[in-house]
């Protein structure tokens, strides 16, 4: 007997999956919008609006006080010939290159040191993270006092071990000033990098380490083949935060060197500040800021691309 196939009556419409009713869909969309609205408004008002308005200002000769006029891209073409701004970009990139790897390496090393449950781990974690809590501004002022040639503790300590003379003027020589600021910043940020690495390490499944142990992997092989690959996202985030922070460096140089000697330690943000408030050219300063936004965005994008995991 041939199988029968039930057929629908000719008048019945072909069965298909019906979408939810349009009223329900509208309600869902409205609810989603309402829930997201506060965050959207916040971003629009405090991020997007200032960005677009800043871009508009960069196309004018906006002074600190007084009327302004639209001047097109004149500010941007002036930047090419602004030697102080160009030098500040070069200096900022050099500074970023100097501090980024040490911050990561020291942070990672400290995370390895404190990740075990040995006695005192908690205390060490707190002490290492303390500089980040105290703040870079406070520590910069402290550094200014301690780096004084004849009255600061830095020269006193370093001269005892033969690493400096008792009268080294750290903050008025470009190379020494950059060294001192870099050491301060590495000390400051390493604790934060440590906490990020530690958070990542604590999320790695222990089964991976057990499997590595079963396979006879030593400490270094485990670290290289298990821990580091699992930490890729955390490393990426830590590096991006560190690089962006370095590109936006201001406080430590403003306090410790004031951009000197001359303009040799002026960072990009210091250059923008000086243009806006000393030269009172807010239009030109806005153009500098837009350029900085583009540079930071590009660097972050490249970092994301380079450090993303396969499949991301």
């Amino acid at each position: 007997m041939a199988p029968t196939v039930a057929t629908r009556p000719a008048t019945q419409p072909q069965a298909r999956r019906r979408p939810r009713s349009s009223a329900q869909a509208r309600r869902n969309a409205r609810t989603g919008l309402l829930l997201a609205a506060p965050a959207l408004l916040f971003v629009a008002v405090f991020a997007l609006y200032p960005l677009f308005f800043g871009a508009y200002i960069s196309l004018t000769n906006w002074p600190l006080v007084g009327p302004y006029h639209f001047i097109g891209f004149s500010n941007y073409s002036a930047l090419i010939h602004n030697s102080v701004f160009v030098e500040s970009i070069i200096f900022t990139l050099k500074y970023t290159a100097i501090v980024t790897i040490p911050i990561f390496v020291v942070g990672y090393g400290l995370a390895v040191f404190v990740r075990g449950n040995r006695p005192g781990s908690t205390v060490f974690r707190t002490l290492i993270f303390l500089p980040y809590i105290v703040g870079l501004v406070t520590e910069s002022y402290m550094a200014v006092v301690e780096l004084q040639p004849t009255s600061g503790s830095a020269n006193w300590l370093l001269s005892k071990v033969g690493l400096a003379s008792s009268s080294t003027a750290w903050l008025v020589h470009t190379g020494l000033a950059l060294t001192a600021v870099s050491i301060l910043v590495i000390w400051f940020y390493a604790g934060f990098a440590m906490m990020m690495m530690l958070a990542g390490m604590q999320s790695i499944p222990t089964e991976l380490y057990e499997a590595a142990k079963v396979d006879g992997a030593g400490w270094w092989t485990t670290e290289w083949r298990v821990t580091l690959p699992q930490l890729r996202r955390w490393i990426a985030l830590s590096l991006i935060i560190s690089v962006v922070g370095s590109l936006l460096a201001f406080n430590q140089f403003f306090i410790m060197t004031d951009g000197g000697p001359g303009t040799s330690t002026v960072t990009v943000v210091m250059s923008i500040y000086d243009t806006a408030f000393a030269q009172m050219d807010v239009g030109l300063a806005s153009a500098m800021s837009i350029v900085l936004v583009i540079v930071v965005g590009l660097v972050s994008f490249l970092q994301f691309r380079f450090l993303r995991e396969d499949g991301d």
Partner: protein
Amino acid sequence: MTEPTYRLTGAARPARRRLRRPLLAVVAAGAALGLAACANNGSSTTATTSTKTFGVNATGTVHFWARQATDGPAKALVAEFNKTHKKLKIVLHLTPPNDDTSQLATAIRAGDPPDVVGLNDIDVPTFSHENALLNITKYVNALSYKSALSPGHLALATIGNKYFGVPYLADLSVLWYNKTLFKRAGLNPNDPPANYAQILTDAKKINALGGGIHGFSFAGNCQGCLGFTMLPSLWANSTHLISGPLGTQKANVSGDAPLQTMLAAYRTMWANKLVPLNDQTQNGLTWGADFEAGKVGILPGDYGIAAKFTTPAQKAEFADAPLPGVNGSSYSTFDGGDDFVIPAGASNPSGAWEFIKWALAPAQQVQYPSLGDTPVRTDILTPSFAAKNPYDAVALKALAKGSVEYTLAYDAVFNEPGSPWFKMFEDAVYQGNMKGAISEGQSGIQSTLDSVKS
């Protein structure tokens, strides 16, 4: 049988469009608000009320913005005024350091300026030349003591023959010296240096005492401090580094012989270790500490450290003198401090003027020394004032010969990081490259004058 196709229908697609619309609306509204806020609100800049009624028996509230750096007199004046004036109340707002001009500029752009501002006098031209301040010429001219007001402070608030402010408080520079060290070095303690040649000679003799004593001290990494203490010695020699009308100003560095003499003196003192080594990194934070500790013989500095000399022993040890001209023909002082200005568009200008006149009265002016500043009226210098405030009497005497470089680019030329003034100082004093320093100073200051916007 064809597979049914699934596509976004009904509410889904319109919801996305509706999501974009509110965002665009927010941004557009914000832009409109911002641009509207930036529009010139066309406030009048000339007060037209009669001098008989303006600033007389005013009522309401006056919003007074003062700098945190000079908060002593501000707080004391406001407290006293509010105690004695029941119908007019002053509300004080202190602006943080480095933020005073930007806060005021923002308030003016927003159409919501305060009623009166204690503005750093070097910043007054920036605002007056943009019609941001009230023209109070007829009220200033009606002051019986107008001729006694600090000429330097008043000049900064003047355009042509119009006044856009009056002096408020004076923060002056003087030459401090240690009488005890003078005596020990065989110098006359009542004969402070009257020119730079004498400063060098005296500094060498004091330095020879040894034991950590130095003959001289300067804030060698503080651009503003150096301008504050060195420029008066040029003005006393009738030279200014900047001259000419705004918009076409000239730098006068390469032709300034007293400037080269002064820089050479500083170079000699640095090279011969007549100053503490720490001076090269002194950014103003602990400026004068060595002198207060009795370790420095001569210190061009701020009058304000007088507030620390309270005991008879200290008053016997430390003395001040006017800053001498490089070649000794006269003396001068840096007319630092603040001017009172009334922003155009202030809601209670009459109340502001009443407060200003009250603050300029002798009863209030004589209190300034105890608050760390100097009065702005030379007629306050009476014998009884001098007897009670011997340190400030010296500063107040110099006030009549004080000055400031009148320019819109003061901060950019002298105070800011990498300023051409400071680069010139570094090259001349620390590197010993006088020729290069003068040449760079001339070109650097001129290009800064040319580039600062008005």
